[in-house]
């Protein structure tokens, strides 16, 4: 269990590190575009790059945000319940979440396949969309690992460990 937790933490944090560079890249690109627009001419395709960087950075940060319990939860009721009940409800909630994200990942792959077949691209630079859809699907997979970890913890709680 501890090995699995270490693995989940390391892998989700690694992708979050990459996302942090995405924030910097987006800031530098947009500022450079504003300055160049004033002194010379705009960087072609800034809009496309910003959309793609945004999608990539959000996807890469999802799992670590889940690991750090960054996704907003409402504690008010559950914190009043006994540990064991919290564990049982937590396991069910985690299973439902796993089901949801497995459908999301699967459907993103299907949407990516469809976009690849149709050759859908960005408007200016003609960057294909499908690799990024596959990446988001992969990141949903990472988030599922985090949820799986939380599921194991909830089961442990339910069993009084």
């Amino acid at each position, binding site marked *: 269990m501890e090995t699995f937790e270490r693995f989940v933490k390391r892998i989700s944090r690694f992708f*979050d590190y990459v*996302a*942090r560079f*995405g*924030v*910097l890249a*987006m*800031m*530098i690109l*947009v*500022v450079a*575009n*504003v300055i160049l627009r004033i002194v010379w001419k705009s960087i072609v395709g800034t*809009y496309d790059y*910003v*959309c*793609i*960087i*945004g*999608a990539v*950075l*959000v*996807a*890469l*940060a*999802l799992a*670590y*945000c*889940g690991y*750090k319990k*960054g*996704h*907003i*939860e*409402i*504690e*008010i*009721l*559950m914190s009043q319940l006994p540990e064991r009940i919290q564990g049982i*409800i*937590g396991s*069910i*909630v985690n299973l*439902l*979440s796993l*089901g*949801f*994200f497995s*459908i*999301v990942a699967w*459907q*993103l792959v*299907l*949407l990516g396949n469809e976009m690849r077949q149709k050759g859908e691209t960005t408007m200016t630079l003609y960057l294909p*969309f499908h690799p*990024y*859809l596959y990446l*988001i699907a992969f990141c949903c997979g990472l988030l599922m690992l985090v949820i799986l970890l939380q599921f194991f913890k909830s089961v442990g709680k339910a069993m009084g460990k």
Partner: protein
Amino acid sequence: MSQSTIAIIGIVLVIIIFLLRMPVAYAMGLVGMVGFALASSIEGSFRIVAKDIWATFSSYSLSVVPMFIFMGTVAFYSGTSGRLFDAAHKFLGRLPGGLALATVFACAGFGAMCGSTNAEAAAMGKVTLPEMKRYKYDDSLATGCVAAAGSLAIMIPPSTILILYGVMVQESIGKLFLAGILPGILLTILFALTIVILCRLKPGLAPPAAGSTWMEKLKSLSGIIEMLLLFVLVMGGLFVGWFTPTEAGAIGAAGALAIALVRRTLSWQGFWHALEDTTQITAMVFLIIAGATIFGHFMAITRAPFTLSEFVGGLSIPPMAVMLLIILLYLIGGCFMDSLALITLTIPILYPVITNLGFNPIWFGVIIVLVAEMGVITPPVGVNVYVIKGVAKDVPLQTIFRGIFPFLYAEIICAILLIIFPKIALFLPGLMK
């Protein structure tokens, strides 16, 4: 089962799942997906989930979120809160309640860099509470004023809630930001008046602090002047149409970073933490918006918001009474639910009602933010109160909650003024090109 019944079951179910501690974003996505499948088809529902997530994650208009968040986190880790408080302290410290007044004005200034209430409450709490303790300020006043004034971050632009609202209802984020400025200033003044009145009634609450010379006062201003110039550049650029909101955010973040580097106030560790906080908050906000979009599509296919809107429009009660009911709903909801969750859940349902009754969506955005500000300080879920409790560990929670009540009255007065004089919010956006 009729479409309206499916919608009602969906709303009840999502609230139940919220209470079972499923993250808000997952719950809205899950219930939205299942509800859409029941109201339409499974294939359609699966498709809409993938499309909504892709559309949200790759949205240009949402790229403003990481940029303004980065601006705020850089300001947080580079000690801007301390410099703002120092300046306000030098000017106001000698007055009765002067440090509390300084806290409120410093919070308003920090709100111009930061769009998150908990970040502001944490940043300002760490700086202001030890100082107020040193001068033997009453715990209840000290913690109450910083918890309440910390909420100014979401009214004074940039504001995460206004961005989220703007994206959800497709209103100009620039106009929403401008609409928040005057109500933000008004609320700051009302908070300051609250402190003055409290200190007049009970002078023992806040003894005067040490005075400063004019030289010290002027010197303290130099610590904040560049931040004020940056705010004027960012908001001014938006106002006159030089930048898009994303560009304004990126310039704000780069400017805050440049100031921190020149002043040598940001360590490598602080820089790395600022980036970490940015990715974490961005991921949280985007996933909530994606979940709310899926849920919104479920609501739209059942036509429930439009049915509700037609029903309310057909009632023989004045629109303002409906508005007051909606505000009351947000006030009660805000006591139990995180503001972000409450707004993303309710906007798809209530927005058609608001527009159908003829209310201005920009004005309503400001009202929503004001009610959200009340939500972050009211028991039992007042997030800011818990943040302040984390900083002032020796102060009991009840003492902090007792301290926020006078400020809650100030917020209610602000809401009444905004309802009577909507121009307070709409004047600046009306001037925008």
